């Protein structure tokens, strides 16, 4: 179950969401949007998607495949996979600390 976040309320970087989507299989733009919405609840807009796709492509973390009837699928590169793994590791770390700190506080000892 997911709460539907619009982009203004999101916490996840679109790059991480896109890389996560492409880590499963190559996808074209609209398929990435629907996949991301499904697994994260983030409704990404085309402008954000293509802003991030262009950056990821320039960084060499994804690569475009041949166009199929006006749609171009993208696939994740080896470098992209390793960057994603690092990002997820650091997010796990943040999640661990964050969860610890948001536990109901004990009465402060004087």
């Amino acid at each position, binding site marked *: 179950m997911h709460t539907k976040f619009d982009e203004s309320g999101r916490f996840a970087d679109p790059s991480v969401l896109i890389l996560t989507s492409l880590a499963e299989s190559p996808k074209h733009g609209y398929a990435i949007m629907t996949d991301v919405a499904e697994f994260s609840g983030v409704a990404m*807009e085309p402008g954000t998607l*293509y802003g991030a796709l*262009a950056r990821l492509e320039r960084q060499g973390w994804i690569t475009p495949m041949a166009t199929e009837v006006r749609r171009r699928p993208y696939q994740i590169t080896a470098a992209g996979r390793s960057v994603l793994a690092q990002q997820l590791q650091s997010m796990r770390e943040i999640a661990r600390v964050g969860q610890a700190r948001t536990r109901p506080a004990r009465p402060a000892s004087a």
Partner: protein
Amino acid sequence: MNPTWAERLARRMVGWYPRRWRERYAEEILEVLDQHQVSVRTVVNLAANAAATRLDPAYRPATSATLRRFLRTGAALLATVAAMPAAFVGVQLAFGEETEFGMTGAHGLAVSGDGRLVATSSGASRVRLWNITDPRHPMLLSHFDAGTTLAVSPDAHTLAVIGKRVTLWNITDPTRPARAAALPEYTRHASAMAFAPDSRSLAVGYHGGVLVYDVTDPARPRSLTPPPRQPADDSSHDIGPSQFSPDGRLLAIKSGGSDQVTLWSLADRSAPRSLTTVVFGHDEPPFGDLAFSPDGATLATATVHGHLTLWNVTDPASPTVASSMDDGPVGPAPDATVGSVLAFSLDGRTLSSVLGSVRSVRWDVTDRTRCRHVDDLTRADAGPGSFMLTPDGRALVSAAHGADTLHVWTL
């Protein structure tokens, strides 16, 4: 279904991305917008991303232009907000490609079978590919140097260009056109081209003959006809519009010098046979057009002054006049920059005729022998330039001389 105002605005926003970015991503993002539930948020998001991309050094052509471009983006955003109700009644939009090229006339114009892709040529050899899915906002996808006279295959995969010779371009991805092959040197004498309806043959017309190439694989074109014995290199004998019949067995080529059309049989692609020539007008200048009906039984011809004839070509060796119409003077006397263009609707019941790029007349031609005038639209003049109708006759595309812009009117 008509696009909502948000969808139109979203498409316009794509036009504000820097040219280099558009050449790479416009086609894809337009496709995503086709499927996406477009809202105000989509539009704002695109505007913000377009502005950010314009500031991105990777897409900036020159530092000196940065501030001007930034201001223009801001001004354009403000202008759109201010003019929102008015933005959708305007009939034309020209993209600012103002700094890059010498402003010379547009010569060539070609439209794909689905009416979404337009190729234009201007200057000495600059070819541009446009997406006109949203006719109000033509989107420049790419440009390259190739030649002046153009033909786009009905499936939009191949572009043929007459330059120093005929070259074939793979435009399956119109944002990345790639030169696929060149036809023999003698094709430099060609002045008309037409793709067969199945996109597998290309007919190249020159004064006095037709060459046919199998272009199933545009990288390996196969010549089906022998080289011309004595190629005419007299360009005063330019031949005009040419079109295949829907079954691909007939080719109609308008010859220059006068308004006459020659029908060629291409039943055997390796031996084009001239069947007959009919004169369809004596107007000056002889810049008429022709169009086959979807069932291939009728050939329509029109002169520059709007004299229309429907020919019964059931027996292509001896066409007969089914009916003939005159819709009177067009207003200003036509000059060398105007012409007439024709297209049937997909159901073959309506014929659109556009005269001098200023007046569009529709005829109900359900009964080929008794055509009925439907309506008559006079539009703001696009100025002198090349123009043509999309294959379904629903939109008029005009590439103006003197500006590298494209105008599209839905009829």
